[in-house]
């Protein structure tokens, strides 16, 4: 579904991602792991158009999306979350969801004034959908609350819900569980699993290894801007290169 060919990105001489190729679609949930600074988030930014790609190409199904504008990429069904929560704090939970619906007719001034009926129909449809999503992420009681007042974990759930509003085909989650408590992690896992049931591809950056092992069918490991491993999570934790990337080499005793 998502194919990345040999993409490279460097910032002022420091290469952040270097010649990474990968393909998504063989399994419903793919994990991307690796130590801090290994280039995972940069890779996400490049795929979703937030960073330009220096070299290499990105395809969504058969269409090349390399260096397309982010909003065009997201309209094609490739949705993402951000590493830090980014709900719209001054909009209500429900509005956060409705606002995320793609290609709303009411966003065109012409349609807004010339086809008010169609716009209203759109709105009703989106509101209905938002309520369904609220059910899925179990935030119905907080529909009218300002999103900024939700707890951190609830905001994470809301972000996931926002993605669902956009009829995604591929979603990319950047550390969805970082810093949230275990019971909400369960909610998140449930929602993510639910997505695969309706044929959505999930690609996630995650540091919580137990979670990765539970959730992912396949895992990619990055280190220092390159891909160092690809395979099942169970193989990954036994791979020597992965262990070294994660825990570091033990220091030579003679030196210390």
């Amino acid at each position, binding site marked *: 579904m998502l194919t990345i060919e040999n993409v490279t990105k460097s910032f002022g001489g*420091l290469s952040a991602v270097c010649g990474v190729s990968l393909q998504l679609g063989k399994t419903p949930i793919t994990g991307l792991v690796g*130590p*801090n*600074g290994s280039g995972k988030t940069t890779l996400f930014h490049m795929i979703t158009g937030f960073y330009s790609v220096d070299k290499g190409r990105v395809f969504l199904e058969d269409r090349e999306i390399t260096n397309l504008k982010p909003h065009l990429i997201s309209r094609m069904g490739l949705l993402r979350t951000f590493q830090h929560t980014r709900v719209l704090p001054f909009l209500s939970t429900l509005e956060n969801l409705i606002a995320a619906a793609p290609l709303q007719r009411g966003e065109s001034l012409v349609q807004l004034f010339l086809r008010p009926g169609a716009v209203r129909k759109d709105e009703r449809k989106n509101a209905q959908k938002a309520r369904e999503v609220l059910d899925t992420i179990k935030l119905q009681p907080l529909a009218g609350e300002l999103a900024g007042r939700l*707890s*951190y974990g609830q905001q994470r759930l809301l972000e996931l819900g926002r993605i669902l509003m956009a009829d995604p085909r591929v979603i990319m989650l950047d*550390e969805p569980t*970082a*810093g949230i*408590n*275990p019971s909400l992690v369960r909610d998140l896992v449930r929602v993510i699993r639910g997505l695969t049931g309706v044929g959505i591809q999930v690609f996630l950056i995650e*540091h*919580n*290894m*137990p*979670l*990765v*092992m539970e959730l992912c069918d396949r895992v990619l490991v990055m280190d*220092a801007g390159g891909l160092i491993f690809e395979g099942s*999570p169970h193989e*990954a*934790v036994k791979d020597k290169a*992965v*262990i070294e990337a*994660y*825990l*570091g*080499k*033990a*220091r030579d*005793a003679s*030196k*210390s």
Partner: protein
Amino acid sequence: MLLRVEAITAGYGGTDILQGVGMSQEGGTVSCVIGPNGAGKSTLLRVIVGQISPSGGRVFFDRRDVTGTSMLERARMGLVFVPQGTNIFPNLTVLENLEIGSSLMENTAERDKGIKEVLERFPFIRVKRSRPAGILSGGERQILALSRIIVLKPLLGLLDEPSLGLSPIMVEMIFDEILTMNRSGTSMLLVEQNARKALSISHRGYVLELGRNRITGTGAELLSNPEVKTLYLGG
């Protein structure tokens, strides 16, 4: 006890990242804080240096309760912090970075001696001393940032991810330097992703998870603790 942190609760904008973390460090030792992302390691360091004021708990340094004192005051007491990411001034020259980095030291003769020492120890810095620090490579930047500790010789140096994004050779070098600094009398507290390496040079290690203390022990104990590996790799 050089540093004692008691039941710290702290975070940003209302959400508490740290939930009752405690730790302590003897003078002259190396300690490290490890743990998965989001565990609150950097936040802990920021609380210790005074960049974030905790909503609960106390920080004692050098037999004094420093909770609530300013960063500047703690720095003057001998608490030197090398943050992650931007830790040098890219538009100042290398030499100016050293001067500014050690501006806490009022004795200028001593300071100049320290700077000279740094320049002698790291020839690759000496040759670029009049160039803007922004042109340095990642490893050179890290060395330059660490040099503050060499010049200032503080009681405690706090390093946030000193090996992040560096090549293996540079990582080795950084850890060598940490040990050297320790030998010259500065206690070191590191937050590290490179858990094995950090533990292997530490007298004591603290493993955090989700803002709480998970495991505590000597470096060697933790190195052999299977739970540590599980935390990182899910076992």
